[in-house]
């Protein structure tokens, strides 16, 4: 019997090696897999490359991972926020490499990795500093920049409900990067509020089919 539900957060993240590339779900706090982040901090993997829309908020989740000096590089669209002090400090100290990517290009690069697309032309950032050094092309009446996929070793995401086949649903705008990140990693680990029996998720409303998910861990409503 297939059973992707693992018993503990510790077990879920146990094999994450130093130097891994990790997609981390969430847009600010919404969808941030905080329980998995805490487990990753306890686990201690270092020299990580992390991909998230932001660079951590406050003292929890991704911010805490940066504070614990486990991150070598961050790929994100919007690092600077009022409460991104852990990132700001590490970045200004030169301890953290930053790759800044427009938000839609970030999403599409992740989606491309999951969909087996080798590269794509996007109009976003054409003529700007973020396209410097990149291949460009005029197609029809628009100018485009060539962008490449972001593949990862792991994706850590937060979903709402999950079953033993790894099917997931999300809750409102906490969905954000979860579904595309799930598709782009070799090993996707989802923390869920609730686990349900097979068949309890409406097949028309499953957002992430289990094919994209390797491990599901239940955290309850609080994490």
């Amino acid at each position, binding site marked *: 019997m297939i059973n992707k539900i693992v018993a503990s957060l510790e077990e879920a993240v146990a094999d994450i090696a130093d130097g891994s590339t990790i997609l981390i779900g969430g*847009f600010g706090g919404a969808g941030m897999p905080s329980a998995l982040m805490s487990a990753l901090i306890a686990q201690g993997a270092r020299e990580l490359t992390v991909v998230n829309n932001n660079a951590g908020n406050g003292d929890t989740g991704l911010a805490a991972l940066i504070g614990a000096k486990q991150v070598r590089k961050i790929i994100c669209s919007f*690092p*600077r926020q009022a409460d991104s002090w852990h990132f700001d400090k590490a970045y200004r100290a030169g301890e953290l490499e930053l790759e800044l990517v427009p938000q*839609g290009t970030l999403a599409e690069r992740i989606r491309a990795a999951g969909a087996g697309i080798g590269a794509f032309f996007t109009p976003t950032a054409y003529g*700007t500093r973020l396209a410097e050094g990149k291949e460009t092309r005029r197609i029809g009446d628009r100018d485009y920049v060539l962008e490449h996929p972001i593949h990862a070793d792991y994706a850590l995401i937060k979903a709402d409900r999950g079953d033993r086949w790894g099917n997931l649903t*999300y809750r*409102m705008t906490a969905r954000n990067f979860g579904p595309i990140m799930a598709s782009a990693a070799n090993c996707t680990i989802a923390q869920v509020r609730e686990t349900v029996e097979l068949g309890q998720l409406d097949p028309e409303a499953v957002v992430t089919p289990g094919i994209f998910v390797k491990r599901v861990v239940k955290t309850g409503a609080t994490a």
Partner: protein
Amino acid sequence: MKRMDRNQIAARVARDIPEGAYVNLGIGLPTLVADHIPKGREVLLHSENGVLGVGPKPAPGAEDGDLVNAGKEPVTLLAGGSFFHHADSFAMIRGRHLDVCVLGAFQVAINGDLANWHTGAPDAIPAVGGAMDLAVGAKNVYVMMEHLTKSGESKIVERCTYPLTGASCVNRIYTDLAVIDVTPDGLQVVDMVEGLGFEELQRLTGVPLTRGKAAHGAALA
């Protein structure tokens, strides 16, 4: 002359958004536009973090951390709204499905170049978010900003000195002094605040303006 305050500019922008428009309001100043859409006019607000049909702020105590807008502020969802993931959300933006986006700006150039994400200061931590996607993606890009910097320089310029967000992407500029269209024939003034003459606006702005025919706001394709 009577400079418009932030809410007056927002109301002026709102006037130009027709019923049925799909609209993204940038974080900061543009968010105010939502409060000024006339009652009964159905306008669909998109937020790039995966929601269409954004409703008003929740009542105090009714906030839900899983229902936020692009500025990470708690919002509500209208009946008829929907959620989707980030790639789908930016497909809407990049694929020219939004009728209007309203963005703040540091500078707009006479050719419609937009600078709104980075001051270029060497020690600044850059952050771009969805601005570059919105700038190239929306059918109509409206900028909403103060006409002048705090030191009195025009933010409408011959050529942006700040790093660009998008090239030739702005369609219309709303400031505390005027509404100005960016056209192939240059900047055309749509209207000005009470008590401001064209010559005075021209003097304050610095780059060439013409008196435009009154325009009509975003048309739905």
